[in-house]
């Protein structure tokens, strides 16, 4: 399993991604500079990390989406390669039009750092195959712009095609506005593209995988990826 972690000026969760994939999971994990034209040969997973790429100038992720490495990330995704974007990585994937929608300022206008519960909506994805439908897992969020928004008709389409991978919920798995930390439409925390090989999510699963550092609610996603590759 070979993971590439693109690093932009202002990325600050790249080491979390390297630690989770490299140290904890034991995968070959390579940091890739944003100016590079190519991903490493035979990259299985591109992990676009969180942070404040290019200082969030213009819009979160807008400038990073134009970085040279992103052209190769698009090629990788078009060929069916796996891409996981977390937090600013999710924003970058939306700006790069690999995923629909946009992440607006949180409804509260505040930066929110908290543990949240997510309900698994899809279990047929390479990112979720080790999970069960309705499973609830706990992971941290840390963002100011996580308010997922889509035109009403596009939101209907996204829901109809099962594009929602994870939704914010209570510890018991109940859905409702009370459990949505940032105002995201339909409580959407993570979505996938049509082919199911590109996942963007605001919460940070990579920050909840190492038992030495705390709870390991994020492991399900990485165990799923492991299973996906074991089978491939």
């Amino acid at each position, binding site marked *: 399993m070979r993971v590439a972690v693109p690093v932009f000026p202002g990325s600050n969760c790249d080491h979390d991604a390297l630690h989770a994939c490299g140290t904890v999971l034991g995968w070959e994990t390579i940091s890739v500079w944003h100016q590079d034209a190519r991903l490493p040969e035979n990259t299985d997973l591109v992990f676009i990390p969180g942070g404040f790429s290019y200082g969030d100038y213009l819009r979160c992720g807008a400038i990073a989406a134009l970085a040279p490495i992103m052209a190769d990330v698009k090629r990788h995704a078009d060929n069916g390669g796996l891409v996981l974007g977390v937090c600013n990585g999710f924003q970058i994937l939306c700006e790069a039009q690999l995923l629909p929608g946009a992440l607006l300022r949180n*409804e509260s206008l505040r930066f929110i750092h908290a543990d949240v519960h997510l309900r698994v909506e899809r279990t047929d994805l390479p990112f979720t195959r080790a999970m069960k439908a309705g499973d609830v897992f706990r992971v941290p969020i840390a963002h100011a712009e996580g308010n997922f*928004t889509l035109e009403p008709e596009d939101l209907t389409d996204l829901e109809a095609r099962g594009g929602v991978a994870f939704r914010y919920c209570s510890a018991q798995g109940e859905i409702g506005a009370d459990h949505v930390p940032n105002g995201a439409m339909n409580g959407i925390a993570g979505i996938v593209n049509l082919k199911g090989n590109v996942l963007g999510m605001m919460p940070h699963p990579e920050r909840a995988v190492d038992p030495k550092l705390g709870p390991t609610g994020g492991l399900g996603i990485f165990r799923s990826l492991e299973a996906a590759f074991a089978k491939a």
Partner: protein
Amino acid sequence: MKVRVSVQLKPGILDPQGKAVEQGLHGFAFEVEHVRIGRLIEMDIPGTDPAEVKAKAQAMCDKLLVNPVMEKASIEVL
């Protein structure tokens, strides 16, 4: 030519920043509603034909300056 691009959130999109500023203005007892906050981008674009320059600015909006999911732009050639 000097060009001014005004980028605004679309009408249906929640603008928490505008809402907070509106509340702030209410705090000063100003009667005001529907405060929306956008972004103003000024630039010089080579050319002498306003229509042509405007078309170039429109192309910039389509490529980068505007996210059509949430924003719309108006272009003014000065």
